[in-house]
């Protein structure tokens, strides 16, 4: 690793969400880089505690961005997790990231109890009886993160091909992320409607597996590589011009396949070609002549930058521009919009206290905007923001930016239907009068 020549200037401390809450060097990017170097150079034992510090990183990439030397401390922390796997692999990771997460069917099965819970109205019952207080605090928080679950995962409900409304101008592949399919199905359905509305015939390969981020995050790049090869092949077969996703995390991982498989002679070129075609949905929509919706969304809306969209993909202007296309929508910038929300995959589970502190900073900023909606195109961020809104008792709805655009389009057909109805009733009345 030549990423080790940290000069210890400390610039990264200013932007690190974990450092700014814990306020100890051990929880800072500079500290993690020092531990990585000392560990790899034999000055320190590669102890469980040393690796634990690598897992304490939220991988928000802010340090990568600010480092004037070009070291990537966040990447280094993730690479160190892989080093740990090589030293002492953990069997449960193979099961989870190799066996469960990449198999959509099994994931759907695993989340079945959650869907039943939703379907049977238990959620309401639990609320009504105040039973939530019986759950340990953390479980209760995790419960309140969940969106209203779809009764059927979107992957099962979606057609393989969604035809464009009118003439096909683009043939688009849609990468349906696991969280989007299982938890935010309605939002991905909205993505498809918006794409179709704008002349895209969308192919959704149903056999896609997890993008690989969870495996990478837990040090199993070998499993992520398998998943990448599988997905690349599927999209090659779909023969599409671009690979669109509406999940910030999937997007940043898919765009990195070229790098992930760079050392694989057979796959390097294919992976690079695949990655070069990946676009976040807002990035893609703003690159085509997007139809301005005629419908209105009367609301004050702010926007939170998912780390893996803004820093991971350099996409931050597009979602804002997209929201500002909607009539009636009053856009207000969120202070520290690109500061991590504390979700960071599974940090709420693994680093509960820190995750909540980071979240508090976000929701304090959110409260200052007095927005009705906070938009963010990342399922992880959305769940975390849902929790934050509830914990702070804010009257704010968390949405995907595309969902608001979709609403404006649908309003439009509502408007024209009303208008048509009006015309019909008008002409009926006229006919009556005539009669």
């Amino acid at each position: 690793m030549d990423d080790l020549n940290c000069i210890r200037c400390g610039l990264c401390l200013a932007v690190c969400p974990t450092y700014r809450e814990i306020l100890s060097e051990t929880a800072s990017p500079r500290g993690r880089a020092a531990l990585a170097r000392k560990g790899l150079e034999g000055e320190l034992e590669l102890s469980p505690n040393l690796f634990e510090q690598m897992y304490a990183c939220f991988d928000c990439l802010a340090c990568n961005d600010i480092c004037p030397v070009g070291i990537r401390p966040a990447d280094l922390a993730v690479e160190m997790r892989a080093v740990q796997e090589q030293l002492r692999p953990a069997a449960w990771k193979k099961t989870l990231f190799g066996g469960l997460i990449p198999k959509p069917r099994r994931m759907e099965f695993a989340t079945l109890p959650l869907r039943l819970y939703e379907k049977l109205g238990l959620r309401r019952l639990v609320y009504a009886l105040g039973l939530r207080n019986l759950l340990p605090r953390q479980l209760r928080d995790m419960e309140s993160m969940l969106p209203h679950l779809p009764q059927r995962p979107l992957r099962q409900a979606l057609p393989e091909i969604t035809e464009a409304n009118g003439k096909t101008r683009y043939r688009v592949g849609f990468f349906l992320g696991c969280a989007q399919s299982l938890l935010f199905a309605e939002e991905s359905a909205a993505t498809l409607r918006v794409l179709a509305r704008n002349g895209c015939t969308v192919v959704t390969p149903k056999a896609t597996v997890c993008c690989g981020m969870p495996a990478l995050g837990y040090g199993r790049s070998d499993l992520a590589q398998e998943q990448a090869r599988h997905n690349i092949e599927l999209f090659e077969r779909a023969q599409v011009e671009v690979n669109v996703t509406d999940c910030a995390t999937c997007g940043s991982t898919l765009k990195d396949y070229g790098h992930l498989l760079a050392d694989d002679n057979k796959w390097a070129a294919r992976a690079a070609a695949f990655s070069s075609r990946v676009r976040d949905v807002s990035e893609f929509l703003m690159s085509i002549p997007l139809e301005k919706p005629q419908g209105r969304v009367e609301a004050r809306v702010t926007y939170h930058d998912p780390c893996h969209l803004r820093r991971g993909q350099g996409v931050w202007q597009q979602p804002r521009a997209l929201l500002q296309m909607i009539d009636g929508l009053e856009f207000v910038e969120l202070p520290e919009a690109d500061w991590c929300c504390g979700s960071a995959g599974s940090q709420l589970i693994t680093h509960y206290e820190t995750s909540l502190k980071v979240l508090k900073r976000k929701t304090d900023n959110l409260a200052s905007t007095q927005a009705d909606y906070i938009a963010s195109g990342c399922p992880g961020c959305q769940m975390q923001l849902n929790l934050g809104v509830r914990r702070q008792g804010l009257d704010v709805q968390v949405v995907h930016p595309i969902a608001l655009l979709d609403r404006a389009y649908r309003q439009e057909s509502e408007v024209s239907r009303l208008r048509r109805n009006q015309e019909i009733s008008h002409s009926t009345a006229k006919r009556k009068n005539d009669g």
Partner: protein
Amino acid sequence: MDKNILAQLEKITGKDGVLSTPEDLAVYSYDGTFAEHRPDAVVLPRTTGQVSQIVRLAARERIPVVTRGMGSGLAAASVPFQGGIALTMTRMNRILEIDEANAAAHVEAGVVTADLQAAVEKLGLFYPPDPASIRHSTIGGNIACNAGGPRCLKYGVTGDYVLGLTVVLADGRILHTGGKCIKDVVGYDLKALFTGSEGTLGVITEALLRLTARPEFARTALVEFPSVEDASQTVNTILRAGVVPAALELMDETAIACIEAAMHLGLPLDVEAILLIETDGSDEAAVLREMEAVAEICRARGARQVKVAADETERASLWRARRSLSPSLARKAPNKLGEDITVPRSAIAETVRRLKAISAKRGLPIVIYGHAGDGNLHPTLLFDKRDPGQWAKVEQMAAEEFALALELGGTLSGEHGVGTLKRPYMAQALGPVSIEIQKRIKAALDPLNILNPGKVFPD
């Protein structure tokens, strides 16, 4: 560290206030330099009372106490070379009061300087000192090293804003000195004594800081000079013309190239130097007029172009670039040694000329940049420490830089401090009388020599 002592420390701060795993000790072994030594324990207090108890315990047990903030220092002043306690002030980060009527802020030592600035600027007030580490250094550290920054040319250094201090003395007693009065001549000026004392005389836990009115307008110009000699001459001409810019920064061609590589701002790569000049104030017309006067002088003295930042974003990015300059030099070579010499401003041009001569003679690059307006330059040596030949040269060249500054009536450090790195040159800079008096002050305040031992003074 002894388990029993760790337990006593935990009793004072709570369990989460004491860190002692090998990993914790390893990351508290450094500051912003290449120097390293592990402490025996890291303690993160939350109140002045806790600090007092910690120091009392340390005094009883004869344990060194090395105070630190965010560890961005450039003189190895907070590296615990004798082990002991790394007393880390970062969790004492409350702004206790912003007194608008008296234009004063009462803060704990661990407040990040940029956070304080943001808080007072919301109220139309201003805390001017702006070290490049503004977002990753603390008020306590700024005071302990009497930090400077570009704006000091017009507004003065950190010490000029210290109205009062709360200090834990070496025996654990708590000293309050100064107050909200602007004028105060009762007794010795102890706050001035602790300012710049680098943790050797006491532990600064709280500060009362003077604020001023926030200047409403600012203009920043990037001035390109084909000749570095012309650029450094221009600095004096501007200052003698009766204009006091808020900042007047010089960067030579290597510095420009490094910033450009890191930030892609479209800086000119075919000039020997640029001056970054800011004028500010509450009267927009006056600010513009001053900038126009500065631009005219620059053009007359050989500037190729004067580009005034079009808007606040452009202006902010120029200053962000300037602040990231020092670390971005690390792209050029495996190691760097940034000095902090200061000369009377009439000697700026000669200093630049002779630094170039030292570089040419020894054959190692010296990047020259700094706060030219107040004569504070950061000649930075680029080298590879693994090459013993280069390392020997670096030591010679650093000595020559110091000798040069002293010869021209200047001194070793303008804003970084002495720490460990400049100790060998102290006697030369101050002379025996001053050194002897200062050592007696140290002995009077810290007779057991537990506060940051081995720093600042030669043995």
